[in-house]
């Protein structure tokens, strides 16, 4: 008989007393900090927890969050949403994607607009649901518009694996998977002509939870070593986040700069090797992937290997999918916000031209974006 109950895995890590306990410890420890610490939570899941549970209200003034780019729908550039829109509008196709993509606007509108205009767009819970749609619609081409970070990438490759093994002829893929370490490097190390990124204010990283379950903590090793930024990989529950913050503050107070794992119950050094092997089998790094708000980032996205081009909707429909770049909104300062150089309310279009219902920049697109959070929780932050 196991001592652990499923309930403990939820309640144990949301226990109000423990959260309060950590709040006390962090407040004590933070008194010793020589200067304020800005912690970037890379992942949108952490942003969500931090906002939902109101964690900044429990923390001292010298600990700040910088909300990172880790929301796969927020960072989807208009160009790629336009692809989905164009593919969905074809008479003989059904575009299948995950529910999160529904609201994100491209230059023609969002996928829910496409559906309202008569395009066949289906939102599924699992990539596996695509199999059933393909079976029920043998005369249609089913295009799976794949999104997500490392967490969700292996699920797409599993579907590819099944499609190939079962010789299913009417499922195709439009791949938009992106990776975390490359964007972290971009945020601390890049220089582009507009922004001097060396001025970023990120002092430490809260490492993503479920990305790390797949990749293992090894992908963050270079950050403390090469970039002098501590990383603590944390779970998504509020207790996890609070514990990880305490670990980061202690590193600063003790003069350490290390990679630590708070989320030990799920994250190992090596991660899920079978999932990694599946990704390696079907995907290779795309040389550039354009992130909404951040621009092109080298090696930050995946593409199908050439030998699977017959499954690749980008290849098959190359003649109808536009390749021109679309500029982000000129007044949008999402790039600066993501680098921790500006707060959402410093943007001239924040809350006026750019609102959650009509987002212009990446940080306003999903409820996990920094601007959307400021808009919603503004006077409580």
């Amino acid at each position, binding site marked *: 008989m196991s001592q652990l109950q499923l309930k403990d*895995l939820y309640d*144990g890590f949301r226990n109000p007393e423990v959260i309060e306990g950590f709040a006390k410890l962090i407040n004590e420890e933070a008194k010793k900090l020589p200067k304020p610490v800005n912690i970037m939570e890379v992942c949108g*899941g952490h942003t969500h927890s931090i906002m939902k549970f109101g964690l900044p209200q429990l923390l001292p003034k010298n600990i700040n969050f910088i909300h990172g780019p880790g929301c796969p729908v927020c960072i989807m550039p208009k160009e790629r949403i336009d692809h989905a829109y164009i593919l969905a509008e074809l008479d003989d196709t059904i575009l299948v994607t995950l529910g999160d993509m529904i609201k994100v606007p491209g230059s023609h509108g969002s996928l829910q607009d496409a559906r309202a205009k008569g395009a066949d767009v289906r939102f599924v819970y699992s990539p596996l649901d695509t199999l059933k749609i393909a079976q029920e619609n043998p005369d249609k081409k089913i295009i799976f518009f794949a999104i997500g970070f490392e967490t969700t990438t292996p699920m797409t490759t599993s579907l590819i694996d099944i499609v190939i093994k079962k010789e299913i002829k009417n499922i195709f893929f439009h791949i938009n998977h992106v990776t975390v370490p490359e964007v972290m490097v971009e945020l601390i190390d890049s220089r582009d002509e507009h922004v001097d990124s060396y001025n970023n204010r990120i002092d430490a990283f809260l490492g993503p939870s479920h990305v790390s379950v797949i990749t293992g903590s090894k992908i963050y090793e270079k950050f403390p070593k090469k970039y002098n930024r501590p990383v603590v990989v944390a779970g998504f529950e509020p207790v996890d986040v609070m514990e990880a913050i305490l670990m980061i503050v202690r590193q600063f107070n003790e003069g350490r700069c290390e990679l630590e794992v708070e989320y030990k119950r799920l994250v190992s050094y090596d991660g899920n090797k079978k999932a990694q092997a599946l990704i390696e089998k079907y995907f290779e790094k795309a040389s550039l992937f354009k992130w909404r708000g951040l621009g092109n980032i080298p090696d930050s996205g995946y593409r199908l290997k050439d030998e699977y081009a017959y499954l690749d909707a980008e290849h098959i429909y190359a003649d109808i999918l536009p390749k021109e770049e679309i500029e982000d909104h000129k007044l949008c300062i999402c790039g600066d916000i993501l680098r921790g150089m500006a707060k959402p309310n410093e943007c001239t279009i924040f809350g006026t031209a750019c609102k959650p219902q009509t987002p212009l920049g990446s940080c306003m697109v999903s409820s996990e974006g920094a601007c959307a959070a400021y808009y919603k929780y503004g006077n409580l932050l």
Partner: protein
Amino acid sequence: MCLSIPSKVVKIDKERNVAVVDTMGITREAGLELMEEDDVQIGDYVLLHIGFIMNKIDEEDALESLRVYNEILEKLDEEERRSLVEEDDNCPNRGA
């Protein structure tokens, strides 16, 4: 956020390579494609993400975390009691 849910494995169908998992009274099939063969057993705690089991939850580590949290609470309680006693000791009106 990468929404993934702790669940318990209640059934395994080797033929179809799926497990049935329970999430607080809700059950669903989950693909085992990302797990090594025979790695997942009935009764295991796993993480479910968009229809797939993405990893097992290490029970020892989870329990260890919960134990640590308990210790922290006990320590804080003790400190609080001590500080209350001290306050009481220092109270000028004591015994008045």
